[in-house]
């Protein structure tokens, strides 16, 4: 295992399932997934189909005006599901804004995943209830939070691990580089999970880095793994290696999951303006769900019952998402002023009182005019 962790440059590209669904042996990774049974593979497949369906439904909701914005994860299902399903409940995730499948795997309700994109709140769930912070929009900022959390876990003497998600573009940010420095310095139990989806909005990864993203980490004193991000089994193995290192005092690990953003950056983006011809088709052939289907089919696990169950689960989740989104009550007007501080703040309390009186004035006027017509 050490030969793939020791920072060999360029990093080895790790893969267990080929794009055409063939399981390749790899004695470095195999021990880490030997407990993954056929039933587990089916569950991973169903997770990926369901999160792709959530993604499609949310995109539709945005097109129908029910969401202000949506950042699709289309194409990144294996990277997110494979890593998230390797975590323990007491681990803590610090995501960017595209980790919708990670949120699903952590147990966040579908409507709560879209709450922030509907504009009803700045975050959709209680981080402590799911061991996952809410989306962070400032690029790379969350990597420092994960590192600090991990420093705390180390001080507390527990073997919980912080896992932070970010993209190839984020690796150019100062915060990510500072997080790598701090994590290495304190040997913090943190996993840096970079989804290299090839694009930072319109900028290809070559604008960010002249070497593979994974090759940067050893320079910080952090071992790295470069894994096929569209191979859910390899992603799970890599994540388990990193988690095990963190839990046993080995410090931080950097994972580059090589994947592809098959959709736009967000629903406000138009990738046809910058994506080279043929690139989408090239990556579609490496689709993470397609290859798992081929693998399951080859193993005789893709039965009509599994297909039907998967379809039903995706349909049901999409229905729950749609209903939960559309039925979401608008927030109360005065909640705009809530939770800025934990305790009373004179200036803000004055503004709240004034605005409450202002709003009450409209209600008074409204009831007055109604009374006049009557």
């Amino acid at each position, binding site marked *: 295992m050490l030969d793939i962790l020791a920072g060999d440059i360029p990093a080895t590209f790790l893969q267990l399932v080929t794009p055409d669904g063939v399981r390749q042996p790899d004695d470095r990774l195999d021990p880490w997934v030997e407990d993954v049974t056929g039933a587990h593979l089916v569950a991973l497949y169903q997770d990926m189909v369901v999160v792709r369906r959530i993604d499609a439904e949310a995109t539709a909701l945005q097109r129908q005006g029910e969401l202000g914005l949506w950042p699709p994860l289309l194409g990144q299902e294996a990277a997110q599901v494979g890593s998230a399903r390797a975590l323990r409940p007491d681990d803590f995730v610090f995501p960017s804004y595209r980790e919708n499948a990670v949120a699903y795997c952590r147990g966040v309700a579908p409507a709560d995943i879209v709450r922030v994109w509907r504009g009803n709140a700045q975050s959709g769930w209680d981080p402590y209830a799911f061991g996952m912070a809410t989306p962070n929009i400032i690029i790379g900022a969350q990597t420092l939070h994960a590192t600090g959390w991990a420093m705390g876990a180390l001080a507390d003497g527990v073997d919980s691990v912080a896992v932070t998600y970010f993209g190839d573009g984020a690796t150019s940010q100062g915060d990510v580089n500072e997080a790598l420095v701090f994590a290495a310095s304190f040997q913090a139990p943190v996993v840096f999970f970079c989804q290299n989806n090839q694009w930072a909005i319109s900028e290809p990864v070559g604008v960010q880095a002249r070497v593979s993203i994974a090759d940067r980490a050893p320079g910080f004193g952090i071992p790295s793994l470069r894994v096929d991000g569209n191979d859910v089994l390899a992603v799970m193995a890599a994540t388990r290696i990193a988690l095990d290192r963190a839990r046993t005092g080995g410090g931080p690990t950097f994972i580059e999951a090589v994947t592809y953003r098959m959709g736009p950056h967000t629903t406000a983006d138009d990738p046809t303006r910058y994506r080279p011809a043929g690139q989408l088709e090239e990556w579609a052939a490496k689709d993470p769900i397609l290859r798992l289907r081929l693998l399951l089919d080859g193993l005789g696990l893709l039965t009509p019952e599994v297909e039907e169950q998967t379809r039903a689960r995706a349909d049901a989740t999409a229905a729950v998402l749609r209903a939960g989104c559309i039925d979401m009550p608008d927030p109360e007007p005065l909640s705009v002023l809530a939770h800025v501080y*934990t305790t009373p703040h004179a200036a803000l309390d004055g503004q709240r009182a004034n605005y409450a009186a202002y709003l009450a004035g409209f209600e008074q006027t409204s009831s007055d005019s109604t009374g006049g017509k009557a």
Partner: protein
Amino acid sequence: MTMTTIVRPSPSVAGPAPTSVPLATPVPLTGTTTLTLAKAINAGLRQAMLDDPKVVLLGEDIGTLGGVFRVTSDLLAEFGKRRVVDTPLAESAIIGTAVGLAYRGYRPVCEIQFDGFIFPGFDQIVSQVARIHYRTQGAVRMPITIRVPFGGGIGAAEHHSESPEAYFTHTSGLRVVAVSNPQDAYSLIRQAIASDDPVLYFEPKRRYHVPGAVSPELGAPMESARVVTPGTDVTLLAYGALVATATDAAIAASDESVSIEVIDLRSLSPVDYATVEASVRKTGRLVVTHEAARTGGLGGEIVAVVTERCFEYLEAAPVRVTGFDIPYPPAKLESHHLPDLDRMLDGVDRALGRRR
């Protein structure tokens, strides 16, 4: 003849005092004792760490060295490297890892080595620390204290004499305090650490070595201003190092039978307007002073609020005595930039209608 002809060295803009002042720090503080302002903060930090094992210190050179101003002296030896953390040299990470520690239930106290070094950490402060409680609808608290030595008058190189407080009073979700004396330094650092909201704690670096009596009592709430010198003719608002200058100005003005009420704001967000308004209703005249540049400074906001609320009590337009709208100047020119006793008295003259 106006009071501005009074020319004398401003004692509050003197360099650091000799280090021969008493530096003993009884632990814990059991009764009133004499401590320098720096030692008073040290005593407050130590007491907070004794009281709560979740209080941890993060910063550059705060461990073995005890901080470049020695504010954290001896704390590493007492509490160990898990609680007194010498960090790599990156301010954004000092703040950002404090956020993660706060997620885990810690109460981090970050030291920013000099005021001018806070800007690499600015994004984490305004985009994360200040708004995570709001963002998460109250689910996640950020009880982070960010200590910042601030202000000029020590003949320093660039980026070592800044007054960046207005950036933070403008940022919702933060509480901001500035201390002026050893007692407040002790009381307010303990209150800041105990606060479940993030607190920017500004330390007047040129007053670090000035001694004063310190009692372990926490005294008035952190959010309250303090009337330093009662007066009847003009209200003079100051904070941080300028409180001493303002107090000297009040003494000088009393020679000409002008009674200045000096108020130490202590809390810059929120401002204790009840105390400020009560004073202005009594005096009818207001002078606000700070070292920070004038435009967009805290003085302008205070003048606006007082004008809104006390318009009929005002006998004259409020006056600001502030730094100029310039980048911080070289050491040989800083005395022209910093409000001193004479510029404060000039402001008082204008508030009294003696000058325009």
